[in-house]
């Protein structure tokens, strides 16, 4: 859980990197009637689920190691 919250916070901070150079409506996400926004949204959800899955797997691995 600690790892997940750290990742989330760091992702939020990484958004600051895009603070410069946003060229308004000529933006990639704003093009083609904004179709890439739902694509981005789906990607975010998938990435969150993957990070979480890796975390679960790590916990499971610990259990398996203890068993052996």
């Amino acid at each position, binding site marked *: 859980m600690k790892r997940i919250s750290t990742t989330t916070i760091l992702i939020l901070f990484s958004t600051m990197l895009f603070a410069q150079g946003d060229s308004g409506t000529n933006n990639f996400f704003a093009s*083609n009637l*904004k179709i890439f*926004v*739902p694509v981005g949204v789906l990607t975010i*959800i998938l990435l969150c*689920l993957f990070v979480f899955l890796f975390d*679960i797997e790590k916990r*499971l691995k610990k259990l398996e190691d203890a068993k052996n």
Partner: protein
Amino acid sequence: MKWIYSTWWKWISVVLLTYVVACSFFVPLGPGITKVSPLGFYPDSVYTFQINTSHAHFLSPQAGKVQLWFKNQNNYFAPISFKVTSNTTVEAQFAVGSVQQNNFKPSNFDVVLNDDLDGTFALRDAVTLVASATVDSSFKALAFSIEPEVKSNHHKLICFPYREILYETIRNTFFHVPMWFVMTMLAFTSFLASIRYLASGKPEQDLLAEQSVIVALLFGTCGYLTGLLWAKYTWYIGVSWSDVIRKLLLEDIKMAAALVAMFFYAAYLILRSAIDDENKRARISAVYNIFAFVIFIMCVFVLPRLTDSMHPGNGGNPAFSKYDLDSTLRLFFYPAVIGWIVLGYWILSVLIRIQLLSKKQKS
């Protein structure tokens, strides 16, 4: 808690989410006007306007007669001439007489299109009449107000509503919105489990309460991050990311309140890890959890409705159901909500099983 070991209900999530993700992207947007040029005109000559649309079907045999009007307040004006140049573009000539230039206040005209297949669609305040200081009596053309006659205002297509500003992002209704439904359901599960724990003292109820909060936070995070992306390209186009986050927290009460609610649940997990004695930890955190759920409901559902918020359905804004005349959104929205909720419980069941296994090993 036998449900965590059975498999059949997990397939509900697989089927529904596959259907939503795969099929919803095949449904196009409804017809809409994307661009009218020129944007302004003067009462001195006849102007030719190029009108671009998206997802219109002017050349389709089912379209029938394509019609266009310029609309000022409640009056419709026919163009001088009008022709369909392609399946999605039309050209119209229009003029306003110099003597009638002051009749239009405000002097913005909507462009309204209609055909039998696409129904009626319009661009609000598409063109502006710029009145000149003096009346030029040499220009004699006049705009005549007419009574429009259409076969049907409603389209005959399978499509999602075309909304200016939103455009294709209306599809996020199936992804961003259900995240919060899942979080609410899991928070409610946790709340019930905490009450049951206090009533019965069964340790598995405490386990259910804790793991539900973890999954609720996962979906809350998903909801928050997706909301950030959606908000930036809907409310704050051209605003830098750091400004978007600051503005959202200050200007949209729902964003701030949801963050507070998530912090309350994060504090629940911290509180748990701070108490070593197992019984004491379970009892104290159960009491805290009941209050956390009440605060969560207040923050996410009550507070944004009391004050102003940019979210649909809050602060006096219409919800999406108002736009969805033919319920095409509902065809995907309800399956999406059920699918995501079942996925949430699926993840929850895996977490509980891992915890039960580790407890078994310890004893």
